[in-house]
């Protein structure tokens, strides 16, 4: 079930998947984190300019995601090697997943793939049971920030305990 813009909608069961997260072939996917909210951040490409970069911002905002015990996964069609270099350069410690082969397969399943051959800039928040709680598509050149994610996590957490670390 997807929205008119194609992106998966709230109330849908999130398709499970795993994707390579490291050059040694370790695979990560949302199903490994049942019981915690999972934020999937699809983005067009590694290496966008620093001060407005979405993944760089999310690393800085990590303590806020931690308050909701949320897991953050970045996803683009870049290779694990690009992701590794990008993560090192920007101090990114959360997993960046490579939707690289078959190219864009997971992004397509979420309705977050573009005709330019990149992931769309799309945010999908899964509740602890793996259902889509919130989703948002942004123009590729617009960094959507983290406020929508935090609002969604707050709503999920309103009937659950907020974790203090």
């Amino acid at each position: 079930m997807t929205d008119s813009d194609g992106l998966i909608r709230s109330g849908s069961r999130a398709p499970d998947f795993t994707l390579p997260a490291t050059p040694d072939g370790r695979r990560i996917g949302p199903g490994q984190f049942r019981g915690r909210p999972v934020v999937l951040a699809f983005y067009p490409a590694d290496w966008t300019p620093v001060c407005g970069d979405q993944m760089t911002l999310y690393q800085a905002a990590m303590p806020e995601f931690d308050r909701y015990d949320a897991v953050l996964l970045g996803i683009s069609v870049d290779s694990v090697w690009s992701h590794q270099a990008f993560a090192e350069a920007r101090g990114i410690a959360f997993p960046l997943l490579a939707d690289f082969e078959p190219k864009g397969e997971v992004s397509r399943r979420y309705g977050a793939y573009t005709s330019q051959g990149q992931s769309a800039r799309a945010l999908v928040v899964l509740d602890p049971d793996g259902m889509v709680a919130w989703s948002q598509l942004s123009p590729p050149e617009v960094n959507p920030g983290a406020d929508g994610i935090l609002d969604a996590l707050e709503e999920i957490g309103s009937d659950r305990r907020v974790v203090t670390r």
Partner: protein
Amino acid sequence: MTTPLQVTSRLRTPVDETDHVRGPADAPVTIVEYGDFQCRYCGAAYPNLAEVLRQRSATVRLVYRHFPIANVHPYAESAAEVAEAAARRDRFWDMHDWLYEHQDQLDPVHLSLGVEQLGLPPDEVSAEVERHAYADRVRRDFVGGIRSGVNGTPTLFVNEIRHEGGHDLPELLAAVDAAAGA
């Protein structure tokens, strides 16, 4: 919940007495800047904002809030905390100006020299920054920014509406004049 195509455009954390404010308290236009002392785009905006305050001195006031992106700017957090140490001594804006005028000298040694240059006690300030006495204050600004949709630096809000234009002088003056006439 599916949010349509939109970007949050409003300041969610109102200006209050804990903010750093430069300009007349009753100014009809308030610019809130979320900045990072090590960000070169903030450095580029700094003289333009100063010039806006000079040219529209009766109209506009500037509020500065911290938004250090520490994972790419290793000195941004300590610079922000030093500015807070200066604020405790009523010297926030002097320190703010020094930091933006010396963006290539934010390492601990040069930063301490800057503190000394301003006539502030470098050892005391260093000790406060080392024990992160102002980290919560800086964090509060950052979190408020995140909740207002700040997605990079500098982000400006003009009378609580996000400024989508550039940061050169003509664009900033136009934004202020539009807000003053609104």
